[in-house]
């Protein structure tokens, strides 16, 4: 299996490539007032309004820096309502892939409440890489938020995925 590797504050994380739709350069987002800080905003992805979650904000508590290697990873996300959504994940240094088997992953031993999306751990010569589990993203509050009216509007364009 192939995993996209990215780096936040010198710690590396990975995502299943099978769940990635596309990686795009960073764009300017339409900000959503009163949204949580980890929601960077929405942007027009091929005519579809996609919400963007800032993983740097979510994991390190700081916004992603505007680097060349800072990219939007568009993933297929199945929310609590079992409906597929396209959401963007903003992250720094998403430039590498790594190929591993599923059984190579080892549990970290600690599941932090509110950060269940940080899953098992693999390692290479450079160190450990923690897996980000998309299905657990974003936190529950966002799940509820996605069950709102906007979520219903997104459902109509579901065939795009």
């Amino acid at each position, binding site marked *: 299996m192939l995993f996209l590797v990215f780096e936040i504050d010198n710690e590396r994380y990975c995502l299943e490539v*099978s769940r990635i739709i596309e990686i795009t350069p960073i764009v300017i987002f339409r900000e959503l007032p009163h949204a949580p800080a980890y929601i960077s905003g929405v942007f027009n992805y091929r005519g579809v309004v996609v919400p963007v979650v800032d993983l740097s904000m979510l994991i390190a508590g700081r916004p992603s820096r505007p680097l*060349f*290697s800072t990219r939007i990873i568009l993933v297929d996300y199945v929310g609590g309502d079992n409906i597929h959504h396209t959401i963007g994940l903003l992250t720094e*240094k998403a430039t590498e892939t790594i190929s591993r088997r599923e059984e190579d992953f080892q549990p970290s031993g600690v599941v932090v409440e509110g950060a269940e999306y940080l899953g098992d751990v693999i390692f290479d010569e450079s160190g450990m890489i923690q897996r980000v589990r998309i299905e657990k993203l974003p936190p529950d509050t966002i799940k509820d938020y996605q069950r709102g009216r906007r979520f219903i509007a997104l459902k109509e364009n579901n065939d795009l995925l």
Partner: protein
Amino acid sequence: MKRYFNRFKILHKIIISVFVFALPVCILLFYMISGFNNNIEFARKEVWGSKLLSPLTTLSELVSQHQLLVRLFLQGNTNVQDRIDHTAKKIDEAFDTLFKEGKRYERALRFDVNTLKSIKMEEIHYSNAHAMWQELRKNYKKNSIVQNDVEHEMVIKPVKEMIKWVAETSNIILDPDLDSHYLSSAAIVILPNTLNSLSEFLLYSESVIFKGFRSRDDMIKFAVFAGNLEESSERIQQNITNALREDKLFYGISESLQKNIPPALNNYQASVVPFLVVLKRIANDPGSSISIEEFLESAMALINSGAQLRETSFHELQLLLKRRIENFSQKRLIAISLSLAALLLAAVIIFIVSVGITRSLGKVIGIAGEIAAGNIYKAKSDLEAIGKNEFMYGDEDKDGLRHSKNEIVQLFKAVSTMTASLDSLLAQVRKSGIQVTSSSTQISAAARQLEATVAEQASSINEVSATGKEISATAHEFAKTMNGVAEMSFRASELANESMNSLSDINTTMKSLLENITESFGKLKTVNEKMVDITQVITTITKVANQINLLSLNAAIEAEKAGEYGIGFSVVAREIRRLADQTAVAAIDIEALILETQDAMKQGMSAVAEYTDQTMTSTERIAEISVDLLRAIEHTQDLAPQFESANQGMQIQSQSAAQISEAMEQLNESAKQTRDSLVEFKEVTEQLNEAVRDLQNEVSRFSISS
């Protein structure tokens, strides 16, 4: 004695004094009254004597007459028998009277048988004469003439002795009043003597006449007797005239005396004259013959008139004496009544005075008792009431009584003044006592406070002493430190000199550094400009590499999705990406680094600029510091000797502190002593307080007016 006397009340004392005074008064009164009584007794004795003398003289005359008549009778003249009987009868009467009067007065006039026996003169008692007379009367006819004469003489002799005795015992011849004296001397002495001698002469003349012739001696005797008779009558005349003349001077004129005596005297004088004529005829003419009868007739007339005069005189004498007795009795009565009245009056006055004094003193004593019991207010009001009631001072007679010399009033005033003074004094004492109590309480409180203060002071002093010790120690240490400081300052001075030199070096170094920095700044600017160029190149490379990377990633994703079909493609993608990575992806971070470097460069440039500024200011400051330091060095150099003096001062201070500490310890001792004294003082104050409380208790016994 005195103590015993002091126990009595004033009334008793006054009564005792009255008795003491009354005693001599009574004695005087007694003597005065006994004087009166003596006078009265004297007069009474005279009366009694005259009463006895009257029958006695009568008796002696009558017995002589009887002798003469008996002699005549025995000579044969029988016609005198009647006259003898008559005379005998009169003699019996006289004896009866004598017995009657003698029984009454014989004891008082001391001629009773017992008294006469004790002086061996019992033979003169009239009872002997009477016995002899009885004998004579029976036997005169039988006896001879001589025998009769002897017997007559035996009768007459005791009578005459009796007369003398009574005259003596009755004091009649010692009569003090002239009228009665003259009268008595006439009636009792002269007249009876005359009559007696006449009687004897008659007997003699009868014998002469009887023998019938007269010798020359007889004639001379007749002449002498006539002269004697004449003289005696003159004396009688003179005495009675004197008595009549003096009568008015003694208890007034006695009317009966003036009335009765002169006729009797005239009668007597009238009877004397014819007898004298007879006597002179017999004496002068030897030839003349005279009958015995004729002679006796005239003699008897004279004897009768003499007896009459005597009796009258006796009677009047008795009257005079009675008047005297009455007078003395009256005087005695007056004296007694006056004395008794005076005594009674004195007693009443003394009683009133003593009762007044006792009553007033009782009131004063009551008031004094009230004062003693402490009821001064009551005593004061009582005094006022008594003053108003008794002495009325406070009313209209105020001034009069204020200057009164009455001791009781003065006593009351004195007591009043005393009470007022005592009242005010007690009020003052009470007030003062309260003040003293409060003062002593205050003093006590103050003493307690003072004690506490002293205790605090002592502790403070202890603290101060300890502090002083600490100061001393500290100062000592400080002095040491100062020594060190002085040394260090000396060293600092040296170091500062060195620093000064170093600073000069630093200054020059800094200046060169500033130049270097300015140079570096210029180089940095150049680097920055070059870096901007490099960055643009790198940016371009990086953009391309980035896009390649992105593309390769998406390709890899797509190849993954394509599965086995995409394996070759994914290999190509991987290779592309590797190429891109080799060229540019590293540059991605470099780019970021460059950006950062640029930022850092900018910051560094600004920092360098700031640093340059700071360096410049530092240089300036160093220059300033250099100057300051120079001054500081100078100061420090100056400071070194000052430190020396400070050091010495500190040592002196240390010594002073040690002295202070010692002084404080002494002070502490003094404070302890003061506290002890205060304790004693407190005790004394408490004692004073107690004494004042006692005094107040004493005073509080007196209830005062305000």
